[in-house]
């Protein structure tokens, strides 16, 4: 079957989908707005829960997409998507028009912009960073404060931009809890003399081996977990970060000074995804992610026939789920193209 599929986004979902479509015999155009493929995974040092190097998964995806049937267009965004009969004409920023029999949208997520939670002082205080900034530090091997010294007392704030009506995100990003636990462990390994505190609303360890990692964080690494939403952070004259939180399990307010405060940024529908929704006429749901045709058995289907959804453009997902979701999208594409082929021949 000589069919063309356009995959939008070359992160984990897009690369997996493109690779599997190519194996199935389709010609794939893989469009990525960044200069290189890989998505957010490129910025992550170790992955939860087994703490393997993120590069190993990147390498798997890179090999999977090294296929003659895949044409990678980096530094390219989508201008228009027009639907004519069973063909989607996808116009790229380079002016090229790609005719696709099916489109897989894998535009992924953006990290919540932590500066929006002004009360935590990201972008205002020197020693307030995000989970993504910390991964960058892990990659460089240098965990330092603004003045170059190693932090001794580190706080991690869960749910920054998640489960928070004040920023318009009612949903749980579901990966930040386990990311916090993983990063806390990594911090204790890099800085054995440090003390690490996690401030959480609920510990949502709902993944394979997550709870075990949480237990290990307590047992082996002595990380303290304090239940309560940090209400505000302020900078003291000694450059330390003072936080206020209610220790809800004691039922009393608590204050503490920290050297470094790490904000666990949640996941939001990407700006790129919103653009695609607008140009293609794709529906989005309550949480601004793409609306799926059916929550239980149609999570790869959009409101448009022939346009399929893969990965975190639909909801927050971990890498395992993202890869499975992308493979499921490929199966939907194959079924769809077989049925259109039958219609044409019949």
């Amino acid at each position, binding site marked *: 079957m000589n069919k063309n599929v356009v995959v939008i986004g070359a992160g984990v979902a897009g690369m997996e989908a493109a690779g599997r479509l190519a194996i199935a015999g389709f010609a794939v155009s893989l469009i990525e707005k960044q200069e290189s493929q890989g998505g957010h995974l490129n910025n992550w040092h170790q992955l939860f829960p087994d703490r393997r190097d993120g590069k190993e998964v990147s390498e798997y995806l890179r090999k999977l997409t090294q296929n003659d049937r895949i044409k990678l267009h980096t530094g390219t965004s989508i201008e228009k998507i027009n639907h004519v009969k069973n063909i989607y004409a996808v116009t790229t920023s380079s002016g090229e028009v790609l005719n696709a029999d099916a489109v897989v949208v894998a535009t992924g997520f953006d990290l919540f912009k932590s500066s929006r939670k002004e009360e935590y002082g990201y972008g205002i205080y020197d020693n307030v960073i995000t989970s993504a900034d910390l991964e960058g530090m892990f990659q460089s091997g240098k965990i330092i404060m603004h003045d170059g010294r190693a932090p001794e007392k580190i706080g991690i704030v869960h749910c920054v931009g998640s489960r928070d009506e004040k920023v318009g995100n009612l949903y749980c990003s579901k990966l930040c809890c386990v990311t916090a636990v993983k990063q806390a462990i990594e911090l204790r390994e890099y800085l054995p003399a440090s003390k690490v505190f996690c401030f959480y609303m609920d510990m949502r360890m709902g993944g394979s081996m997550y709870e075990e990692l949480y237990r290990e964080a307590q*047992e082996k690494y*002595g990380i303290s*977990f304090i239940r309560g939403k940090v209400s505000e952070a302020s900078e003291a004259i000694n450059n330390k970060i003072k936080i206020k939180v209610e220790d809800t399990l004691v039922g*009393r307010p*608590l*204050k503490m000074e920290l050297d470094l405060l790490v904000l666990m940024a949640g996941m939001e529908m990407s700006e790129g995804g919103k653009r695609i929704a607008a140009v293609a006429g794709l529906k989005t749901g309550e949480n601004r992610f793409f609306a799926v045709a059916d929550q239980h058995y149609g999570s790869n289907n959009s409101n448009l026939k022939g346009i399929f959804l893969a990965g975190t453009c639909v909801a927050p997902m971990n890498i395992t789920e993202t890869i499975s979701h992308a493979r499921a999208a490929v199966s939907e594409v194959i079924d769809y193209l077989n049925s259109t082929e039958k219609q044409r021949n019949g």
Partner: protein
Amino acid sequence: MDKFGFTISKGRQIDYDLNDRFIAEYIFEHEPSFRLCIECGGCSSTCSTGQFTLFSLRELHILIKRGENDKARQNIRKCMLCGKCMLVCPRGVNTRNVVLLARQAFQKENEHAV
């Protein structure tokens, strides 16, 4: 002299940096499972003492961890060491030993004070 009814309220805020957590450190050292508590309250719900008096083993654990030792000190003798709490703990914390160690640590504190 008449009392005007003015009082000074002691702050309710836990000052984590000011508090001394030597009791917690002592227990961590001798009973590492103390770290594993997730504050579920299973121990308190099964506790016979807790049914009749203001005693919560869960609360005792967390107060010790925060260095709020005074309240813990007032309550630590209420435990009858029956060990039912150990049977229900989902994290396998040796809760009875935690109480025994806390008593030891408070004892040492007294000896040093003398």
